């Protein structure tokens, strides 16, 4: 078990190196002058530009710059932006907000998705099943920014039921709607996955045994069948975490949330390479750790999986 975890952690190193290098190369290949707009209306003086480029290693070839950057990163330094702000400080402020948003979205997708999936699965072919199938198809087909903007307009602007935007404090109440929007696509997938797996498990031999043991239908389905049906669902939610972070960029834009997604968006917009690379590096790391966690959880949920 510990060997497995250690091996997985070691495997992260090449993945982390590879993905950060690609991002690094892409970000610095972006056209545009990072000193643009730094000196008011005029272009900056050549001396300033030269000094700026020197300070930020912009004259070095890409591999050297990457190596220098990773050297700093290894010491816990995520870099300083062109505007002299430490990326680590910025992220420290913004991470809790995005974590809260993502966490709430996961709770949403799990709760609503599983309940809808179970209601559809135990009434296979009936009204409830069709309702869930159609409405999930609907949600999957609509892009997340359309769902977000529409709900924001109606619930927020028009009817005033929900706050339109989220304050820097990002309270749970303010995040309810954004989290719902962020989790909406995954809710649909979780519901469908739960339904399919439940229907399959309801036909399983062990469920026939459960009924023959004299268990109530509620216990046989709610404990025996559901416990088995949820194994792939948990895996999906973990694998979907990356998609959720991508969705967070859009959602944070729509609701003006001061989170990592919004920061990343601004960074790309401003050609602020250091902040982009720093943010993405942390995102990749979080993603890898979540995946490890999910794989470990998978082993706990399904005893047939061995991590030895």
């Amino acid at each position, binding site marked *: 078990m510990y060997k497995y975890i250690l091996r997985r952690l070691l495997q992260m190193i090449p993945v982390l190196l590879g993905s950060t290098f690609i991002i690094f190369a892409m970000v610095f290949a972006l056209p545009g002058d990072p000193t643009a707009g730094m000196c008011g209306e005029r272009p900056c003086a050549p001396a300033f530009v030269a000094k700026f480029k020197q300070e930020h290693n912009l004259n070095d070839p890409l591999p050297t710059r990457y190596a220098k950057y990773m050297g700093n990163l290894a010491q816990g330094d995520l870099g300083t932006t062109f505007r002299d702000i430490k990326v680590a400080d910025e992220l420290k402020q913004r991470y809790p907000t995005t974590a809260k948003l993502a966490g709430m979205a996961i709770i949403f997708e799990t709760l609503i998705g599983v309940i809808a999936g179970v209601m559809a699965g135990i009434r296979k072919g009936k009204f409830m099943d069709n309702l869930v199938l159609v409405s999930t198809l609907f949600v999957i087909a609509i892009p997340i920014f359309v769902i977000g903007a529409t709900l924001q307009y109606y619930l927020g602007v028009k009817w005033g039921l929900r706050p339109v935007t989220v304050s820097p404090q990002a309270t749970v109440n303010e995040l309810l709607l954004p989290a719902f929007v962020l989790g909406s696509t995954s809710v649909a997938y979780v519901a469908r996955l739960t339904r399919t797996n439940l229907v399959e498990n309801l036909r*399983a*031999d*062990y469920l*026939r*045994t*459960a*009924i*023959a*043991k*004299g*268990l*109530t239908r509620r*216990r046989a389905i709610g404990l*025996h069948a559901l*416990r*088995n049906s949820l*194994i792939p669902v948990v895996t999906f939610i973990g694998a979907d975490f990356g998609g959720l972070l991508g969705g967070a960029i859009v959602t944070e834009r729509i609701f003006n949330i001061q989170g990592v997604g919004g920061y990343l968006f601004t960074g790309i917009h401003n050609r602020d390479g250091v902040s982009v690379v720093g943010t993405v590096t942390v995102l990749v790391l979080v993603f890898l750790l979540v995946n490890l966690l999910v794989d470990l959880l998978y082993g706990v*949920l*399904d*005893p*047939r999986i061995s991590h030895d």
Partner: protein
Amino acid sequence: MTTSETMARESAKSSGQTYKPQDGLLLEVEDLHVEFHTPDGIARAINGVNFDLFEGQTLAILGESGSGKSVTAQAIMGILDMPPAVIPKGQIRYCGQDLLTMPDEQRRRTRGPEISMVFQDALSSLNPVFPVGWQIAEMFRVHRGMNKSDALERAVKLMQRVQIPAAKERVGAYPHQFSGGMRQRIMIAMAIALDPAVLIADEPTTALDVTVQAQIMALLQELQEERQMGLILITHDLGVVANVADKIAVMYAGRIVERADVYDLYRQPGHPYTKGLLESIPRLDQKGQQLAAIGGLPPNLMRIPEGCAFNPRCKFAQDVCREDRPALLEVAPGRESACHFAEEVLHG
């Protein structure tokens, strides 16, 4: 079983309802019919099955694949999927009470404490994600309201009773960590946990090696004698049950076509179908002879032939066989056969 033992078992049940067999009669299946309503039509899987089961009796049900053995067992257990299954006719009485008309909740409480079942494939029949001890203990927790540790203690005792080595250490292991034979022992432990009066074993050894088959049969027989259960043993292999069963019922197309004591039937079949079955078993005393398989296929259950269902495959068939369905009648002491020419088959 003596009266005092019967009383003891009854008082141990906490389901509220008590069931008392009259003169040892546990189960009466009467004119049972089961149909499957499928998009292709109605498959008549069971077409009037009758039998009784007494305390301490072992009844073997023998028949080809598709003859309705499992459906009969599932109807008794009440675990048929309805729909597609429909029971248009018949009664299944346990200690005099019809299970088919009993309220669902009352019937549920009979599963486990009164009637219990062991399935063919123990690997798929056990839940893969719960420890075996937990699955056995669940019987005590659900039906007896026992707490977790007491129930687990009972589970260990049962695992020891079915001869699982190092039961105490393995109570937390999962089904896939056991061999096929050990898994079937766990199924058996679970089935006998609440000391049921009736145990149904549906091909309990089919998935196992020959040597393990014998061990499992021996265990079932031992438990049956120890607890004086009524045991229904379903098989398509007469060799497996010959030493264990008292009576054998042979099924064809959802009916019992012959019923007799094991040795009588083995020595002298009273129905052409049984005769065919026996001739298709290799025998030590007829080494080298060609095996005579029964020609033709089992009938399509959506179009069972008129008259005797076996007539298209029967060597003895006459015109009457295509018109009249023969009833299951006593043709010799302790021997029933559903054939117009039973006497000839028996003595010819």
